[in-house]
């Protein structure tokens, strides 16, 4: 007897490259003529099963609070088959879970596509499996978060003033959480506590990509700018020149959108747009205690990017057209804004490859952005994004790193590198070949020979420049890790906070007498010093020190950049002091381990605008 097939019979599928889908432009509060403002987006097409389940995303509409499964949603096969309520933004879509499923799926996929386009390659998740799990109504909670342990995104819902509020219907929240997942895939060590900037950057990048993703929808920009427009002729709306200054655009676009965004849903993560838009520049702002909190510090970074966005947009409009042109078509103003938002989002995503894999600072991030953008887009004359970014960041006291080259990009690597024993083809894909390259060049690359080294990834990528030419690069990451005793730290001129050492001695004195003396360093062969690893090394007193770098090879196999942090460098003293002061080290079993970050907790603290006083605790 023939066996029943376990999968559904293959249905004829349109083999088109993209699939158009309706999404909520921002959230259900942003309305035009009483209808929810929606947008049509192009999503990479794939064979999509009911769920929806695709090759990168598995949506599971299970609500753990009510313990109810809402079914596997079959999405319309094409845009034309969508219910008219979806396309017209009927308020009824707020209660349509099938639409919610499409909204989340489309936003996750276009964010993934945006990252893959910017970085010129496929991006795997931080976990071993291929599909990111997504729960669009995961639990009754005023929160939404990415959880690497759960391998997925969880979107909560809650009772609002006029009915249920679903975080899965907020464009910025879905993109923010997806960005967390993607950044974790690209830079897994950024989730491990290091310095105030690194903790803030995870939130900041989420906000930047989310807000610029919202602003890259011309429908939405035209909508928020509409109140500032006047009708020059029937069906032709224009924006007066006076409404295109940076201050006017800030008022009309940023605050205009912020005013319309759902008050309740924006409370979920603390009004990212409103807070960053009104953060006035100050060169000392990052030194103030308030902005040492990760969630507040991230707002400074976002404010600098939004400021650059507004300045570039204003410049672009005012410098176009005739010198004395008194008004500009609204459609064009909106399109320019959307284009700049898109270009800026791409710039920041692309910069991730040029960031050090550990101990990121805001200066590192800015330098990485300037470098990667210069590589792919040498001509900055169209939007002048680099010029605006440098100026805007300077106003918030953030400058490129001190060791940057004259053009504020990373300095080139040393010239005396040995390539004679390296196989060029293998270097593009093979971790062992890259490790050999490091092995042969330890001295010129200033690697520490007494630390454990591991190449964690080798990624060939092809980026497309605005001129249509390809930039082929290979990006390889490596880590160095070492565990030292206090005496060994001292010998390397790294200062551990005296109170930390005293604590360790006090809590571990008895056990250490029974245990063998710790080795000079513990190479941690598999994980190279992950959080759990540090916690499970009882003979180790101090937390592991990390270093490492990223190697950017060009299409000829030449090393173009080596961006790294020394495992025994001067940043380690400041890092240990920060971790200790902020209560991010746990002392147990006579050893110190890192307190792992949970994004759900961070989001809750952010929403409450909570302030921590780690130095006041015990």
């Amino acid at each position, binding site marked *: 007897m023939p066996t029943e097939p376990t999968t559904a019979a293959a249905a004829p599928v349109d083999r088109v490259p993209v699939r158009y889908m309706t999404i909520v432009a921002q959230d259900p509060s942003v309305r035009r003529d009483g209808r929810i403002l929606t947008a049509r987006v192009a999503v990479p097409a794939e064979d999509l099963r009911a769920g929806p389940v695709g090759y990168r995303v598995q949506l599971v509409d299970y609500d753990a609070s*009510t*313990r109810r*499964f809402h079914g*596997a949603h079959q999405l319309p096969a094409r845009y034309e088959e969508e219910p008219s309520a979806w396309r017209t933004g009927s308020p009824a879509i707020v209660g349509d879970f099938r639409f919610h499923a499409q909204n989340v799926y489309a936003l996750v996929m276009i964010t993934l596509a945006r990252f893959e386009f910017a970085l010129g390659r496929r991006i795997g998740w931080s976990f071993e499996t291929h599909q990111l*799990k997504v729960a669009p109504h995961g639990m009754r909670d005023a929160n939404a978060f990415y959880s690497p342990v759960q391998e997925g995104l969880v979107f909560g819902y809650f009772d609002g003033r006029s009915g249920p509020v679903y975080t899965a219907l907020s464009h910025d929240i879905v993109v923010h959480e997806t960005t967390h997942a993607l950044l974790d895939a690209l830079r897994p060590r950024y989730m491990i506590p290091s310095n105030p900037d690194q903790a803030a950057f995870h939130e900041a990048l989420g906000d930047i990509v989310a807000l610029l993703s919202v602003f890259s929808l011309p429908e939405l920009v035209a909508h928020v700018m509409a109140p500032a427009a006047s009708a020059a002729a029937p069906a032709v709306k224009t924006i007066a020149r006076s409404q295109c200054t940076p201050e006017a655009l800030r008022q009309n676009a940023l605050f205009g959108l912020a005013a319309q965004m759902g008050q309740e849903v924006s*409370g979920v993560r603390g009004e990212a747009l409103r807070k960053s838009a009104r953060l006035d520049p100050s060169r000392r702002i990052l030194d103030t205690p308030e902005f040492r909190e990760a969630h507040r510090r991230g707002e400074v970074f976002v404010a600098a990017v939004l400021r650059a966005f507004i300045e570039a947009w204003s410049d672009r409009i005012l410098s176009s057209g005739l010198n004395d042109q008194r008004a500009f078509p609204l459609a064009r103003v909106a399109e320019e804004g959307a284009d700049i938002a898109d270009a800026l989002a791409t710039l920041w995503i692309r910069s991730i490859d040029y960031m050090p894999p550990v101990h990121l600072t805001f200066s590192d991030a800015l330098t990485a952005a300037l470098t990667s953008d210069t590589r792919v887009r040498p001509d900055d004359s169209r939007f002048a994004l680099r010029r605006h970014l440098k100026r805007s960041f300077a106003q918030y006291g953030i400058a490129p790193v001190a060791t940057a080259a004259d053009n504020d990009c990373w300095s080139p690597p040393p010239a005396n590198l040995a390539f004679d024993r390296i196989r060029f083809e293998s270097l593009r894909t093979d971790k062992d070949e890259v490790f050999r390259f490091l092995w042969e060049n330890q001295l010129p690359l200033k690697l520490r020979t007494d630390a454990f080294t591991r190449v964690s990834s080798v990624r060939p990528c092809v980026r497309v420049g605005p001129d249509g030419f390809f930039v082929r690069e290979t990006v390889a990451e490596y880590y160095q890790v070492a565990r030292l005793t206090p005496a060994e730290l001292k010998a390397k001129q790294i200062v551990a906070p005296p109170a930390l050492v005293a604590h360790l001695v006090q809590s571990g004195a008895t056990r250490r007498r029974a245990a063998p003396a710790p080795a000079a360093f513990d190479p941690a062969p598999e994980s190279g010093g992950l959080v759990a690893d540090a916690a499970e090394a009882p003979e180790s007193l101090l937390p592991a020190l990390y270093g490492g770098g990223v190697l950017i090879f060009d299409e000829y196999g030449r090393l173009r950049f080596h961006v790294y942090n020394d495992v025994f460098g001067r940043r380690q003293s400041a890092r240990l002091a920060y971790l200790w002061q902020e209560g991010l080290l746990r002392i147990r079993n006579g050893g110190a381990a890192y307190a792992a970050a949970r994004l759900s907790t961070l989001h809750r603290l952010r929403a*409450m605008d909570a302030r921590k006083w780690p130095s*006041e605790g015990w």
Partner: protein
Amino acid sequence: MVVMATRPGALEIRSFQVGFGDCFLLSFFYGTGNRRHVLIDFGSTGITERGKKAPDSLAKHMAKIAGAIKNVCGADGLAAVVATHRHADHINGFGTDSKSGKSGIVIRDLAPKVVLQPWTEDPGAAKDATTATRDSSRSLRSTASVVASLAAMNRIAEQVTKLAARPPAWMSLAVQKELMFLGMSNLANRSAIDNLIAMGRRSGSTAVWAHHGSKSGLERLLPGVTVRVLGPPNLKQTDAIRKMRSRDPDEFWQLLAGTAAARDGRGVADLSAARGGGPPVPAGARWFRDRLDRLTGEQLLEIVRTLDQQMNNTSVILLFEVFGRKLLFPGDAQIENWSYALEDAPDAAATRKLLADVDVYKVGHHGSLNATPRKALWEKFSRRKNAELHTMLSTMPGKHGHATSNTEVPRRTLLTALAAESRLQNTMDLGFGAKGKLCNVLRLVPGQSPKAWAEPE
């Protein structure tokens, strides 16, 4: 006729053995036969020591403590009762039902003339509680809405306790244990709350709802004693800080409470329901479904912890000054409550100066991680030098927090500092049962060194 002295000639502070809870009796001596007693908190969430069987039920034990309080007060009765905040480990002894051994009846019969509580407990403020709890709009933010949030916490606690009593299969033991503890602490204690309200409404009694800088109502009862209220800040005071910040944290707090309580009233209870009510979960999605179930417990715990902390931060903080000595009673106030008095209030500098030479410190929140601000408070206590500072701690280990996450109560690093730098009286040393003692006593007399001892039953 005996004329009462214009200031006390001695003071005795009793810290009763209530396990994990607080119960302090301050007795001011105004010459022969004239004493005024102030009871600060009376509650417990557990008297069972780890690995041991409790000699009495909690109800029986609380009745015994009430009897001891009555014995000390005698015919004087109580001048005042202070309930620092609503947690069970501070007020369930005021209950008049059988769960608390009717100990509250004994206290009520001692006829306190003042019943002092935080402003958040004002029953008049809760009249539109239901509406306000479920609405987080700025316009409705009011005393009522805050009070309503506390009430929501009580309702959540009820559901959480039921859930933890019959934990679903996916709930880990650690999550269950902490949910049960926090649930029990935050149960409504209706009987205790009603009794406190009734005591304040009795003829000849006054109910005082205190906030930072307000009158305590104790001055007229305690001649020669200055009592300052340092916390909690009221909404007007915290609003002054928030002008510099862009968001109102209360909104989110209320949102949390509303979310966990849920519109249909089921809320947490749903978590223990059997799966179902919808189509079957596809086989390929069950792994994630199970993970989500487990995650819900952790998220619930996070919400309950946050709300529990908010409740702690409604604690009344009192500073007594008597014959040149200062005594600080902060309830369970944590750093968020302290920060107003020590940093943000207009008189913060004067308060810091005032607290620098405190003589007796009731250790906040049973010795937890965040209730004795290390730099802003502890390190400023000048009497730590030469161990002239007296500290009183009422706690029981193994009930709250975890050593692995450095959240155990009492926190071992704080205990080390208390033992090394102060003269610590700890109820942990009193024990229970036949060999146990009833309370720690500290006697202060002008011009003499303080005397400390443990009093037998």
